Structures are given as C-alpha cells and as structure tokens.
C-alpha cells in the first residue's frame, strides 16, 4: 500500500455544522410567525433565489478580498457590466426569448450568462492591471482607486449604453410561476437557484479538487509562502480577479433579468450587500459566503413580510448578530 493510500483511511477533519444550519434555524424560527404555509414557502423560495444571486455576485469578491487582500469597491462595475452584457444578447436575439421553444429560451439565457461572464472577466483583467495592481498592499489607496475606477466604469457604461434603463424580458419558458397548492414559486427564481447552486458546486469543485483551487485556498491564507513554494502568485491574482469579475458579471446579468431592466447603478445597489455577505461568511470563505447569502436573503424576506420597517436594517442587524456570535464570521479562514 502506498503512503498516500495509507492515509486515506484516517479520519478527516471535522467541519462545524452549526453555522451552515443558521439559514434553516432562521426559517424554522420565522415559520410560526408567518402563519400561512403557502406564504412561508413563497417567501423562502424567493429568499433562496435572491440568496443565490447575491452569492454569485459576492463569491468573487470574497476570493479577491481573501486572497489578494484587495478592497475592491469597483466590484459594482462588473455587476453593472454583466447586466448590460445580458442586453447585448437579449435585444438582438429577442425572437429566441419570445419563441415557444425551451431550447431557444435556454440558449439565449445561457448565451447572455456566458457573455456577461466573459465581458466582465475581460474588463476585470484591464481593471486589475490598471487600477488594482499599482495599489497592492495599500488599503486606503485601494479604496480610493477602486471607487474611482467604479465611477469611471459607470460613466463609460452611460456613454456606451445611454442613461436610460434598458428593459429586459425573461425568456418565455421562465415567465410565470409553478403553483403548489396555494404557494406560487416563480420559474425564474427556480432557475436562479439552480444557477447559484451550480456556481457554488463549481467553485467548491475547483477549490477542493484542483491544484489551482489548492493554490487559491493556500494563497488566501498565506500568499508569501505560496510564492516561496515556487508559484507565480501575481498570475494567480490576475486569474482570481478575472474569475471574481466574471462571477460578478454573471450575478449582474441574473439580477437584471430578475428585475427586467439593466442600469449602471445596479452594481452600486448590491455592493454593500456583497460586503455584508463576505463579512458574515468570513473573509475569503466561499462556503461562508454561500451560507451568508442565503441567511441574509431569508432574513430580508421574512423581515419584509413580518416587520417591513425592520427590513430596511435587517442586513446590518444580521451582521451584528453573527459577528457577536462569531467575530470572524461563520467560516473564518485561518490567517486572516
């Protein structure tokens, strides 16, 4: 038996389960107050879908922050760019979206998602080289430079696409709702949930089953040592930044379709939420941001139904509560 095989039978490290259960505990706690089962199912499904879209946007930010130690306030630009990229596909291929064909409807959605990810990744490459690279290791300058970059990007989007909101229609297949008894679940929310879960599964697969993922996880913890082992961290940084930008773009496209419109301010609307999510999840933790996204979205939905005035500050309250319980977030990354 080889040395590697000998180790396979040894016990694995135990992972903490309780933080991952917080969304479930919140749902169970809210259920009695909501009263109606159908309303609870609708709110929960909507929360899951919103959580998945937030996760798609925020997971890139947590990797960039965790690994590169970069406070990227320009993340909003990639979200907005993704939203506009969706219009570049949906408007010329409007007939595909309105066709009575699942294949064409799915194709236009997938093309929009791919376009959003690729365009944002390409813009991310330029943004990292021009704006982020000169300010590595300088947090204050990073904040100023990336906010400046976001403003420039927003104005460029206005210049290219115009100041008006661009309407987007969902592909025909994804309009309407699935109805279960008295509970209605929008089809697009199911799609958004599936996309979010796919993104999460893909990220976990890459992070846990590939050498690149191993390097990213190690880099989040100790960039210098990764370099001292012979790996070009600067190249890894660019790749991670592009991947984070692509995810933001994908999330932006999803959100624009959900809202039925693309606008340059969509990124700014979600930037603070993304930061809240990565803080709650634990800086640099993809799994943590996944749980945090669902948690934040569920709390917002339940609070919006039970106490609408409280909903305005539910995210902040959730962050305060989690940080009081676990000051470094739900799944803190060692060394950060």
């Amino acid at each position, binding site marked *: 038996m*080889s*040395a*590697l095989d*000998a*180790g*396979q039978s*040894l*016990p*694995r*490290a135990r992972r903490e389960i309780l933080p991952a259960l917080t969304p479930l505990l919140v749902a169970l706690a809210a259920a009695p107050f909501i009263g109606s089962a159908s309303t609870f199912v609708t709110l929960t499904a909507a929360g899951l879908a919103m959580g998945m879209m937030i996760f798609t946007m925020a997971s890139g930010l947590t990797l960039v922050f965790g690994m590169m130690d970069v406070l990227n306030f320009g993340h909003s630009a990639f979200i907005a760019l993704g939203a506009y990229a969706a219009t570049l596909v949906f408007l010329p291929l409007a007939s595909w979206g309105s066709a009575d064909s699942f294949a064409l409807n799915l194709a236009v959605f997938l093309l929009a998602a791919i376009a959003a990810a690729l365009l944002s990744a390409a813009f991310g490459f330029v943004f990292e080289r021009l704006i982020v690279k000169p300010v590595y290791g300088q947090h204050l300058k990073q904040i100023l430079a990336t906010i400046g970059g976001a403003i420039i990007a927003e104005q460029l989007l206005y210049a290219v696409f115009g100041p008006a909101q661009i309407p987007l229609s969902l592909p025909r297949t994804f309009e309407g709702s699935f109805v279960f008894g008295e509970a209605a679940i929008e089809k697009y929310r199911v799609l958004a949930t599936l996309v979010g879960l796919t993104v999460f599964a893909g990220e976990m697969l890459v992070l846990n089953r590939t*050498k690149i993922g*191993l*390097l990213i*996880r*190690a880099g*989040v*913890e*100790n960039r*210098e*040592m*990764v*370099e*001292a*082992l*012979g*790996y*070009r*961290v600067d190249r890894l940084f660019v790749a991670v930044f592009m991947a984070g930008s692509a995810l933001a773009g994908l999330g932006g496209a999803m959100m624009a379709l959900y809202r039925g419109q693309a606008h340059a301010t969509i990124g700014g609307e979600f930037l603070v939420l993304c930061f809240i999510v990565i803080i709650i999840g634990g800086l640099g933790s993809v799994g943590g941001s996944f749980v945090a996204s669902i948690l934040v979205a569920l709390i917002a939905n339940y609070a919006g139904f039970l106490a609408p005035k409280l909903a305005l500050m539910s995210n902040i309250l959730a962050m305060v509560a989690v940080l009081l319980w676990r000051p470094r977030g739900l799944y803190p*990354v*060692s*060394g950060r």
Partner: protein
Amino acid sequence: MSAALTLQGVHTHIGRYHILQGVDLDAPAGLVTMLLGRNGAGKTTTLRTIMGLWRASKGRIALGATPLQSLPASDVARLGVGYAPETMAVFSDLSVKENLALGARNGPLDDKRLDWIFGFFPALRTFWLSRAGSLSGGQKQMLAIARAIVEPRELLLIDEPTKGLAPAIVGSLIACLKEIKATGVTILMVEQNFRVAREVGDEVRVMDNGRIVHEGGMAELAADDSLQGRLLGLSLDAHQ
C-alpha cells in the same frame, strides 16, 4: 569545496531600517552551514533576502553561477531552493496531504519520497488528512520541513527549526536533518540551539548588526570558548 550559495556585499532595507549592511557569506555545496548570532542580528532577514521575499537593495546573491538578487521568490524556488520559515507557515486550513501536495511543484507526490519522510516524521502519516491547523507546534514544524523537502532540492534554507519544540522532538529533527544532509543537499540553517547546531552543522557563520563577523568550521567554534564568548557574548554551551 565549491560554494553552492554566495552572498557578496548584500544590503537589505525594510522600510527605513537598514537591516543587512553588507553581508558576505558562502555556503559550501553539500554541507550544512549554520548561521548564528544574537536576536536581531539579521539572520532571518538574510534567509528571506536569499529567498527573494525581501529584495536586496545592493549586492550579489548567487546559487552556483545563477544570480538570485533580482528574482522573485517563485523563481528562486524554481531553481531548487526550499524554504522552511521560522513561523513554519503551514497552511492551517489545508490538510497535511494538501500542504505537501503544494510542496510538490513538479508533479504528483512521490510515494517513495513520502515513505522516506514518514520514516522520521511518522506523525505526518497519522494525521495525513487532518487540518494542518490542528497539529501541535512540533508537528507543524515537521510539516514545514517535510514540505520543503518533498521534492529534491539543491539548497535548503531552514529558519530556527527547533524553536519551541520539546527535547524529544528535537532529537527526531536532528535525525531528520542528518538524513537530509546525507542526500548531499546544501543547507543554510539559522539555529539558536547550539546542541542542534553542533550536531548538524559543518560550517558556521556568525552575524552581528547585519554583517558576518565570523566564518569557519563548526568544530573550531565549538572547541574555542573564548571565541564563543567574543562572538556571541557567552559560551555557546549556555545555549543548550
């Protein structure tokens, strides 16, 4: 014997501090060179500067005939330099296996080499899939050294490997270092524990205020109390 590693007039600034002030040092090929000196003398900075983690502001560093002083750490490592830092710097969230997999830059882990490593660090086999963060201090140190040698290296830079370790573990570490030495690899090692330094070291370089103030054989320094007192301020036996 030819020098595997040569430093000539190396200066290093960290911020506004001038830490290395003209280090001239050579590490003969295939031997263990101990770098001794008081705290703050510049030993760790020397290793980090060789490794490319801090940039030399002046001077020349060469591995054989290859200049290192302008290379990033990744390129220095790719030339066959392994580094086990004082902080150990194991990746706490990664398993022992994953930590070693990262050390194996040129391909998958070699089972034979792993068996050789497990021979003197059996705990690494026991905790193969455990998080490195859950290991004891001694086990982390074993992992840091194992990671540095999981592939054959031309030069090993090891910074205070016995710091904070229990005597029994220090014994294992000495055996390990002797085994590594027997493979012919060149080692430059910072060490405060003179028992370890004397057992493992062939050559010795003593630093003070960012400069090399003595170079010679380890046996010569170990046998000369007055030299020890002059160089280090006290007999090296007091370091045991």
